[in-house]
C-alpha cells in the first residue's frame, strides 16, 4: 500500500470497505487520508481536460510524467528526512552540482558509468557533510541546509563557468526511452518512491525515523543510535539528490547555468508539505508526497496548456501550497498520519 499510482480514483479512496454503507458527503472526505488532496487533483485535471483537449493526449501526459519524475525523487528523500524531524534545503543545489560536474566530466570524454558513480558519490558526500553539520554542531537543519543550498548553487555556477555544456547523446536512453510505454525516468522515480514507502513502513530504519521525528529524546533513550541514523538519512537525501541531478541531465542533454537549484528544491518541499508530511517530524507518507508531486506537475502543465501568463505560475503554485497546508491542518486533527 505504500505506493498507489497517481491515477487512483477518488471514489475508490473515499470508501473504505467498512464504511461502504454510509452516505457519502463532502465532509467525510476530510476523514479519508489525502481525501482533500485527491479531490483538488481531480478537479484540476477535469477542468484542464475540458478546457484544453491536448491535456489528455498521451504525448502530454508522458511529458508531465517526465517533468515530475525529477521532483519526485527529491521529494521521496525529503519525505523520509522530514518524517525523522530533519530538513534539507540543499537537495536542489546538490542536484545542480551533480548535474554540472557530471556534464563536465562527460563532455571531457569520461566513460558514462564511472561518471555516474563519481557523481553519486559526490552527492552522497555533500549530503553527509550536511548531516555532520546538523548532527554535531546542533545548528538547526533549516539554517544549515539553507546555507549549503546557496553555497551549492554558487558552486554549480562555478563548475560551468557561465557556459552551457552539452553531453551529446550519452544518457539519452535514461532521459527519453520508455519501458512498456512509461518513461524510464518515471520508472526510476517510481522505484525510488516505492523503496522509500516500503522502508518507512516495513523496516526498523523507517520506524526509527518516525520515532526520532516524534521525540528524539525518547528515540535516543530507547537504544536508537540517533546520530548514526541522522547521518544515514542526510547521506540518503544526498544520493537521491544526485540521482535527480543525473535524471535531469539525461532529460535535458545539457547543463546550463541555473538548472535545478533552489527553485527545484522549493517545489519538492511544497510537494512533500502538500502531501501532509509534518515539518516538525513524526508524520509522513510517501503516498501523500506522490499526490503532492502530481498535483504540482498537473497544475504547472495546466497553466501551460491554458496559456496562462507564465508569471502566474508561481502565484498559483503558492496558492495551491497554502490551500493544501490549511486542509492538512484540518485533517491532522482527525487521523494519525502514518
Amino acid at each position, binding site marked *: 500500500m505504500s505506493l498507489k499510482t497517481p491515477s487512483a480514483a477518488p471514489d475508490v479512496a473515499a470508501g473504505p470497505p467498512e464504511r461502504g454503507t454510509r452516505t457519502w458527503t463532502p465532509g467525510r472526505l476530510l476523514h479519508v487520508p489525502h481525501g482533500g488532496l485527491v479531490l483538488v487533483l481531480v478537479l484540476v485535471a477535469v477542468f484542464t481536460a475540458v478546457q484544453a483537449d491536448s491535456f489528455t493526449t498521451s504525448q502530454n501526459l508522458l511529458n508531465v510524467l517526465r517533468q515530475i519524475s525529477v521532483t519526485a525523487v527529491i521529494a521521496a528523500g525529503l519525505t523520509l528526512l522530514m518524517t525523522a524531524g530533519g530538513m534539507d534545503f540543499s537537495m536542489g543545489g546538490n542536484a545542480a552540482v551533480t548535474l554540472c560536474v557530471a556534464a563536465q566530466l562527460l563532455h571531457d570524454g569520461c566513460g558514462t558509468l564511472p561518471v555516474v558513480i563519481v557523481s553519486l558519490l559526490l552527492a552522497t558526500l555533500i549530503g553527509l557533510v550536511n548531516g555532520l553539520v546538523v548532527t554535531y554542531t546542533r545548528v538547526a537543519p533549516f539554517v544549515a541546509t539553507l546555507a549549503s543550498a546557496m553555497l551549492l548553487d554558487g558552486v554549480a555556477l562555478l563548475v560551468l563557468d557561465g557556459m552551457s555544456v552539452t553531453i551529446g547523446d550519452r544518457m539519452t536512453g535514461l532521459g527519453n526511452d520508455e519501458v512498456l510505454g512509461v518513461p524510464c525516468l518515471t520508472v526510476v522515480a517510481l522505484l525510488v518512491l516505492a523503496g522509500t514507502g516500503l522502508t518507512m513502513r516495513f*523496516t*526498523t*530504519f523507517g520506524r526509527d525515523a518516525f*520515532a526520532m521525528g516524534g521525540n528524539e*529524546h*525518547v*528515540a*535516543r*533513550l530507547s*537504544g536508537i543510535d540517533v546520530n548514526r541514523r541522522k547521518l544515514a538519512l542526510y547521506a540518503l537525501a544526498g544520493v537521491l539528490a544526485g540521482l535527480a541531478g543525473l535524471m535531469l541531465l539525461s532529460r535535458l542533454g545539457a547543463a546550463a547555468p541555473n538548472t535545478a537549484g533552489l527553485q527545484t528544491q522549493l517545489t519538492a518541499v511544497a510537494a512533500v508539505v502538500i502531501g501532509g508530511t509534518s515539518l516538525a517530524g513524526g508524520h509522513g507518507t510517501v503516498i501523500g508526497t506522490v499526490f503532492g508531486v502530481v498535483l504540482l506537475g498537473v497544475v504547472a502543465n495546466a497553466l501551460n496548456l491554458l496559456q496562462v501568463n507564465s508569471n502566474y505560475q508561481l502565484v498559483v503554485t503558492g496558492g495551491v501550497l497554502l490551500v493544501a497546508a490549511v486542509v492538512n491542518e484540518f485533517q491532522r486533527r482527525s487521523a494519525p498520519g502514518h
Partner: protein
Amino acid sequence: MSALTDPDTEGSTTVTSGAPAGGSAVVRVRGVTKSFGRAAALKGVDLDLHPGEIHALMGMNGAGKSTLVQVVCGVHQPDGGTVEMGGRQYSGLTVRRARRLGISSVPQRRELAMGLTVAENIMLGDLPARGGAVHWKAVRSQARAALSGLGIDIDVDRIAGTLTVAEQTMVEVAREVRRGGRVLVLDEPTACLSARDAGRVRDLVRTLRDEGVAVVYISHYIDEVMAVADRITVLRDGAVVRSAPAAEMDPASLVRAMVGRDVVSRRPERPAPKDEHGLVVRGLSQGRAIRDFTVEVRKGEIVAVLGPAGDAQSRLFDLLSGRQRPDTGEICVDGRPVPSGRVKASLASGLRCVTGDRRTLGLVQGMTVDENLMLAGDRFARRRLHRRSRLARRAAPVRDTYGVVALTGNPPVGSLSGGNQQKVLLGKWLETEPVACFLEDPTNGVDVAAMADIHTLVDDLAARGVAVLLASSSAEEVMRLADRVVVVSAGRTVAEHDITAITRDELVATALGGQPQ
C-alpha cells in the same frame, strides 16, 4: 459500599449543611451531560460553587473531572443541562463569555510566556500604555500590587522561565485574580511540587478563599484534599457519587467513593533479596545538584531514594541513563562498571531507566501503543523488519501483563489516560530483561486504581530478582514499595533506613523537614 448510599443529588431541594447559604452560589451546574462520540463523559452532573469556598473535585483518571471543569470554563458545550451564573442560565458557554463572567482556570501545564518577565506575564493582554507606548513603570507596580495582594513574594523582574513550577503556578493565579477571576479552577496545582512548595501553593489557595473567590481544586492527593478543601465532590464514570462538606468525609470513604471498591495496596511478602549486588552507585556527583551519592541495591531488593521533588533523586535519571555525564562517580551493574555518559553503554549493561516525565522522555506520543511498547525491545533484538501484525502479536502479551486498556485497537499512545500511558512506559522497559531498574516516580499523575496496579508490577519486578532503585517524592509510595530508603536533601544523603525500622511519619519528618501533613 457506603458510597452508593449517598444523598440524592437532585440539587436545590437538598441544600446540605455546612455550606454557605444555598442561594449564594456563583455557579450552578444542573444536569449537565456530555458525550464524546459514543463515550459519555458526563451523565447529569450537578455542581454548586460558592464564593469563599474551596471545592475539591476528586475522581480517577477519566471520571469526568476535566470535562466538567471544561464545561464550566466554556471549553466544551454540554449536550444537555444548564450552567447558571450571574443570575442567568446558559445551555452552553464560550471561553470568552466564561472569562467575562469571572471564571478562569490554571491548567495542569503552566501557560506562561516563558521569555517574558513576571510583570509582563501578569499584565499580559492588559499592558498599561501611555500614548501608544507601554508604560513599564506602571506594569511593574501593578504586577507587584497583584502579587503582594495575595501575599506572594516573587520579584516581578524575573523571567518566567527561571521560576520554579510552584512560583509559576502562583504567578498564574495572581494573573487570573487580577483579571477579576471570581471562580478559579486549579487543576492539580501541587502535582510535581516539593512538600514545601506545595504548602506555599495551598496557603495561597486559602488566601484566595478568604478573599471570597470560589476555588475549584482538582487533586489526586487525598491527604491534601482533606486538609485544604471545604467541600468535596467525588465523580466516578461521569456521575457525582458523593458531594459533602470535607468534615463529613474520611480518607477511606473517599477512596471507596472514587474507586467503587476498597483499593488494596498493601505490602505483599516478597522473596528475600539475593546477596549479590545488582546495582551499585558510588560517589556520584554533578555540580551542586547531587553530591557524593552512594547506594547499593541487591538483586530482588527495592531501594527508594526519597527527597523533595527536584532534589538529588531527580538527577539520577539523567546520570544513570547516560544522558548526562556525572562529574565524578561510578556505576556498576551486575558487578561490571558502566561507562558514564553514554545511553548505549547504560542500556547494554542491563540497566533500565524509566523516566518520571513520560511526555518528553518516555513515550513518542504520536506513535501507536504497540509500537511504543516494543520501541526499545525491538531495537535490542536488532530487528530490521517491521510488520504491524507481528508487532501486535508481540505486544499483546505485554499489554495483557501490564493491564494497558485502549478503547479502540491500537491508538496513538498520547490519547490514552495517564495511568495507561504509565503502564505502557513500564511495559516498554520492564519486558527487556533488565538486570537493574531505575524507576522515577512511577505513579506520577495516575489514579488510585492504576497506582495499585503499578505497585504490584514493581513488586513482581523485584520478585523476578531485579535490583530496583526507586526515586520518589512520596513517602506513602516508599513505605508501600521499598525495603530500604535513602533520604536525600539539598543534594546530599541525609539518612538511610530499613523500612521496617521507621514509621511513615518519621520518614516524612526526615525527608521533608517536618512538613505539616
